[in-house]
């Protein structure tokens, strides 16, 4: 049960980080003509660090099964997050 | 060499030659790989690494801009492995 909780917590943290990265991604914004994302300074490195942190923390805790499930899950979740088109596009040309 | 000849040579290197190199790399592993704590690693890794033993020469053959270089690397590897296998085969 604890492994499952570790996994779910790690996945939640990483999914949030990936979601944030998707929001601030410059190329994504450019491709969909969305320009800059408001005034909040973006922190891609921090987000990458947080998103990938479970990859260090879980093995360090000896939670190998949670680590491996997390690794598999983020590759699917990241894909699904990136797959969704931004809604408020005005033009779709690249 | 003309274009067709080069293409055929590259196919030969990436196809049958790569396969032979992969098999020889696997067969030679027991003779150089550290035996490890349980005295099985040299046997186990020969088989475990087979996909890598295939992929490495395959991409050498595909990526090489100068075909003869790929040929030298692949055939040289094959020769070294074959020597290892047969030399020690006879000694044993």
């Amino acid at each position, binding site marked *: 049960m604890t*492994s499952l909780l570790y996994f779910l917590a790690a996945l939640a943290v990483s999914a949030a980080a990936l979601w944030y990265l998707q929001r601030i*991604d410059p190329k994504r914004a450019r491709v969909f003509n969305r320009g800059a994302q408001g005034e909040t300074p973006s922190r891609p490195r921090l987000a990458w660090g947080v998103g990938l942190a479970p990859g260090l923390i879980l093995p360090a805790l000896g*939670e190998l099964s949670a680590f491996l499930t997390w*690794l*598999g899950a983020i590759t699917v979740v990241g894909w699904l997050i990136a797959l969704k088109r931004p809604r408020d596009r005005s033009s779709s040309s690249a | 060499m003309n274009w067709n000849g080069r293409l055929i040579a590259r196919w030969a290197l990436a196809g049958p030659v790569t396969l032979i190199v992969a098999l020889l790399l696997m067969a030679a592993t027991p003779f150089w790989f550290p035996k*490890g704590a*349980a005295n099985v*690693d040299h046997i186990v890794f020969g088989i475990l690494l087979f996909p890598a033993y295939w992929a490495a020469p395959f991409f050498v053959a595909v990526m090489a801009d100068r075909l003869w270089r790929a040929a030298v690397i692949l055939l040289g590897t094959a020769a070294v492995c074959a020597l290892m296998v047969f030399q020690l085969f006879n000694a*044993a």
Partner: protein
Amino acid sequence: MSLANKAQSKRLLAVHGWSAVALGLFLYVVVLTGSVAVLAHEIGQWSGGGKGHANVLDRPIHDRLTELAEDVDPAYREELSVYQNAAGSVFAFFHGHEKKEGAGLQDKGVRFVLDPETLAVVQRDEGFRSDMPIDRQSALDRFIVGLHVRLHAPNPWGLFATGVLGFVMLAAAISGIILHKHLLKDLFVAPRISSLLLNRRDRHILAGSWSLPFSFILAFTGAFFSFAGSVGLPIVAMSAFGGDQEKMVEFVLGTPETADERPSPVANLDAILSESRARVGSSPTFMTVSHWGRADAKLTVFHGPAEGDIEGSNHVFNAATGAYEGGKPLLGAKPSLGNAVFAWVGPLHFGNFAGLMSKAIWVALGLATCYVTLTGLQLWTQRRNESATWRALSRAIPIVGYGAPIGLLGASVGFFASFRGADPTDWTAAGFLIGSALSIVAGLAVKDRETLSRLYQGATGFGLLALPFLRTLLSGGPGWTELLNTDGALIMAMDLLMVFAGLAAVSMASGVRLEKLAAGRGSKAVVQPAE
């Protein structure tokens, strides 16, 4: 960042594309059936009615095994394996090892199939392991696994074929990494819709990029499984053991010490199993007894991975005295790097280390790879849309893409329909062929792509919706009232999975297609021709 020059990129793209064109559809079938086979155990329990899902190694079996041992040729008491398959049937296989014509060293002996409730002998087979008939209870999950492992081709050719497909997938993953210069930069760029071709390209690359790590892992481990026994074992045995495969297997397994052939009664196996349970803290899943009835008899008990672990563990007992002799690695007599790596290969490929959670993720990883394969093929054919040959291949993509799952539905129907009477093994295969054939006929008859896709989706959806009913109506499997009163949660969950997947497919068939949606909402750029 550029990993390859122009000429190299051109060659890599040729490898990436042409290998997919030649073998991509086969690869798709193997990966799809692999994704389904992740749930082989669950499918076995679901299709076989879940009879006897209580673990046989948690119940008294000593007396029964002792009786059975009396009933076999003493030569076959060299080794006994006791295990339970997905459908719950219990197997006790007394065997020795003999050379089989054209196949090398194999297990040969007497296999008893026991009823999980009463332990009565349901079936007795004698011969080589590879010639043993498939347990009828398990015909559906064995069919799916057989399709994944060797495309149902005879050994070793089937293994060679899937191994080569593993190499193709490995080459596609590696060349994909080198080819895609902006892999990290494009990781969050949703597929553009300015043209259908660009959209396809983006879809393929996005899914391919995210699934790269596991495509690589699944291809590597899969190729290992295909080639380890069929190529690796004989080759390394030849170079390092003068061709003696038996010697090599014994060496690698770390089978120890001197023989002691004096007869000695077998210690109480039930007591040993319960001690093992107490030591490890989980139920055993598999056991073997070597040298049954001799003073050097050993009992090896396998336990699945403990909470939080990836690998299971083996425990050895002296089967004459019952004394615990310690844990044993899978390979070698003591822990080693080789064993540590080897022990991860299975879990990495099967995703079976953390119950249904890891299995669900592995199914998703497999399906993502299917998606990458099919979108890649679509991309390749669409770029060459002017040529009739490529248009023909592009027609084959939906036929195989939908035909394979429809074939699997056909296999399930065949299994359920024949379960009570005829031979479910043959009818499961026949059902698959019928389902596939119908898909091909539909693909050739219906010209309009859109209509065809919807037809396929509808057929898949209604097929999935029908399976829970066919399971009870045709094969006499337990209904929900019975399942609610017994421990039938898994079967109900599988039923629900079929219903949800079926509803999703039906809604896809009836809903508006994504391209249309994009065209309706998007700008005029949508209809611009590609590049």
